[in-house]
């Protein structure tokens, strides 16, 4: 089959969780024998250009569909590209295939997909929807930090309408967690399918470890891999903002990803006391450095206190075999591992910090073959297996 994957970010060099997820979805679909094209809108100036992606519309254009478009850019993109006109045409002209299936990751380009199906595919393409979150809930959480309640509620309702439309009009909906799946079920025409976030099976070489050692200086460290997505910073400060005495003096807190810079430059870090001295911003790391960090970390922290969906960093942590200290929110979608060896779940600052201290004082976690086999369900090939099977059979259900 020919499959068109639509998203608001390119996936050539994935950095954040959403990019990794879609990149692996495309890889698994290709591995299943499909001809897959990834296209869409470059939703942020921070993404590099990509051949099948059009640039984000200018601010004036976004402001035409919503007055206060800050943090509502994705919804504005949905409106601009989902209606006939220059934006629809610019993206449609880049897509050179007539797909059998259009896979829309997140709801923002679903209206575009409907229009494209009607105009280009003559209605013969099957639309499926990949949900990463209950978007309207996440959106209202984020907006509430910046806007008054009236704007938050109005924006939330617009996003909710957008995603419910995507669920209702798609032949299949794929959800990232059981929690999301339960909410989605009542709007879906077919039972939604769980497609949890996963992880690739990384193997660190000595060169990878050497690259990581250059950052950690060979010290014992806790690792937090996080993009600059606001809930990642907020979660960090929710947990550590009142002080973090849980890091032994010679140990380090290493943050890999965009969150590192945001945390390092946040005035709240200075108020934590000793954590500031032990904080290492690894920045955006290469795949080699990430492999090295995951191989040598003593523990992985998942201080996520808001947001929906599942955190693919949780899958990464589980597969790494390190000690894990995580919130319940961070373990969403991985509930079967809540009591796994080396995993501690703590939802408030004191409990989380005490768990971190205790884990630091333990030797490295040793994962045996049986544990490893149990954890292999977090590999992408397994988390996406049902999705791939469903898309393979999508002609039948359509």
């Amino acid at each position: 089959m020919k499959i068109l994957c639509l998203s608001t970010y390119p996936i050539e060099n994935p950095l954040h969780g959403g990019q990794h997820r879609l990149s692996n979805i495309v890889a698994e679909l290709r591995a299943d024998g499909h001809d897959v094209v990834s296209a869409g809108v470059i939703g942020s100036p921070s993404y590099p250009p990509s051949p099948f992606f059009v640039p984000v519309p200018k601010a004036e254009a976004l402001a035409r569909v919503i007055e206060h478009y800050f943090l509502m850019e994705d919804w504005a993109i949905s409106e601009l590209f989902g209606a006939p006109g220059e934006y629809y045409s610019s993206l449609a002209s880049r897509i050179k295939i007539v797909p059998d299936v259009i896979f829309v990751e997140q709801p923002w380009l679903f209206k575009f997909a409907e229009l494209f199906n009607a105009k280009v595919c003559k209605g013969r393409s099957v639309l499926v929807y990949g949900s990463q979150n209950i978007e309207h809930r996440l959106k209202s959480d984020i907006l509430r930090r910046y806007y008054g309640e009236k704007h938050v509620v109005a924006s939330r309702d617009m996003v909710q309408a957008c995603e419910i439309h995507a669920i209702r009009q798609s032949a299949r909906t794929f959800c990232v967690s059981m929690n999301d799946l339960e909410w989605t079920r009542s709007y879906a025409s077919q039972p939604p399918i769980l497609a949890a976030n996963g992880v690739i099976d990384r193997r660190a070489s000595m060169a990878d470890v050497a690259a990581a050692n250059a950052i950690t200086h060979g010290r014992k460290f806790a690792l937090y891999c996080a993009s600059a997505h606001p809930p990642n910073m907020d979660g960090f400060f929710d947990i550590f903002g009142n002080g973090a005495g849980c890091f032994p003096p010679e140990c380090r807190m290493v943050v890999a990803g965009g969150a590192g810079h945001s945390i390092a430059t946040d005035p709240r870090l200075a108020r934590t006391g000793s954590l500031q001295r032990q904080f290492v911003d690894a920045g955006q790391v290469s795949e080699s450095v990430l492999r090295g960090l995951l191989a040598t970390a003593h523990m992985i922290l998942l201080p996520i206190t808001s947001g929906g969906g599942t955190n693919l960093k949780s899958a990464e942590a589980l597969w790494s075999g390190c000690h894990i200290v995580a919130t319940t929110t961070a373990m969403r979608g991985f509930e079967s591992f809540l009591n796994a060896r080396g995993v501690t779940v703590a939802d408030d600052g004191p409990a989380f910090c005490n768990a971190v201290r205790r884990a630091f004082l333990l030797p490295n976690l040793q994962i045996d073959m049986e544990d490893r086999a149990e954890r292999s369900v977090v590999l992408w090939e397994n988390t996406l297996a049902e999705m791939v099977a469903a898309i393979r059979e999508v002609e039948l259900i359509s």
Partner: protein
Amino acid sequence: MTPSLVRRPKIWMNVTTSANWDRPVVGVVRVERELSRELKALYGPDAFGLCIFDGDEFVPHSGAMRIAKHSEAQPLLWPDRSRHARRRSTFHAGLGVAQWGSPQPTDERSNLRGPNSQPKKAGRGIVRGDIIVSVGLDWDHPYVDKFQYLSDALGIKIVTCCYDLIPILLPQYCVGHVAAKFRDYFTKLSWSSSLILCISQRSRNDYIEFAQRIGAPQPETLVIPLGDNVPKTEGLRSNVADHVSADVSRVTEAPFLLFVSTIERRKNHEVLYRAYHLLARDGHAARLPKLVFVGMPAWGVGDLLKDIELDPLTKGLVVQLNHVSDADLSYLYEKALFCVFPSLYEGWGLPVGEALACGKAVVASAQASIPEIGGDLVTYLDPWDARAWADEILTLVDNPQRIRSMEKAVRREYRARTWRDTATVVKGALDRLREPEDVAITLYPGYDLQTLFGMPYGEAIRSTGAPGSLTHGPYRILPAGTYDIAITLDKLEGSGGRLSCALRSAIGDGDHAFRTIEFDAREQSDVVVMLQRIQLDVPIDDYEICCEVTRGLLVSIKRIEINQVSA
């Protein structure tokens, strides 16, 4: 080893604060000095010594202290009546002292350093098992950063003091943003101290709650009673009244209430001023005793002092004294109608104890540690309720019989605490810490050792196939005794060769144990290499675990355990 060579751990009192203090004595300095003096008396010179932090290390100290330029006390935390501090001498840092303990590396991980890395040396004087007691203004000194190293690398036990957590709990009453600094400070104490002395149950509770909140370890804590006996004026040739200043004499000619404390917002002089304002407004000014503040103005009270100065209703009723001498203060306590202490928070609250020790009636707030001092002997009021203070002051002024009744109960029931009491309690805890312990050390090579031809891989060091030194370090102290050493490693299938393991010192000149193992390439193996019954007749101060591999052997040294099997 003969029993005569066994050395009992020695107590070292860190007097860096006192030795460098050239201003009027404040409470913390007083604690450091009084505790030093009393512990020295209890232990004697063989088991007790003074030390200071000089440059980058602690060194023994002769005991000379700088003293205040002004002989009269200027209370900052507590007023000074310290008699022994009257000597003037000069502090000579580091004269004739032993070198011991090279500085902890401040650069990043030592195991990434080259072969010229200097080993850490331990030396004479302060040795493994000894105890450093540090109760000074430690948060203002860099040596706090050394405590962890002294504890972990050199086996020195660290005893510190928690006076209070006010900068963290009540930062609004402190200068600048000091909360983060004190969070950091208490975090360091938590990780490095074998024992934290707390000057009240409240301070102890505050510390434990704080440590729990931030996930810090909680070392043993001990509440110690601070001496609160007001120094007697013995040595004066005639009675005290002959030695008081003219200002104090004038003040004491009429009835007065006494509040001894630095004038700062947390001490809440404001509620007393407001109470006096209310009473004066209600027409009671003529019946009111003077309100005497003894203490130096500090930060944040400019507006209050201006109000007091300008308020026509209370004009002449509120008197401020500072630079009072021992005799002055003793006389003020003696002559006061009663004492007041409306503080919003205290780590202890010494003036309450001093007033009670002088047999005075006390009206105080029931905040924080204050009830620990006075129990039922003190009348407690809400520190925010000026009307309540006004009412109580008027009631007591109108009922001298009630004051006498309170004083009678105080004289009957209150037991003043002496600095000997303090030292005795501290000694009990120190004696427990002095009990000998067998050495049990676990080293994780990736974090604790260094490598020339291998690579740190998390807590392990892995060989890369290159021949040569795989591990060296950690260059720490190992006391005399008999030891077993267990080296846990993995050998990868397909690689073979020889591994040699040794316990060395003096940068390789001293070879205390040695063993080699040949590995067959066909096997993958988890191995524990034992170096057993290693006899050290004298301590070594820079031991290292040296592992070397031949070309092609791929091993991961995962853990090294050193256990003392006999002394």
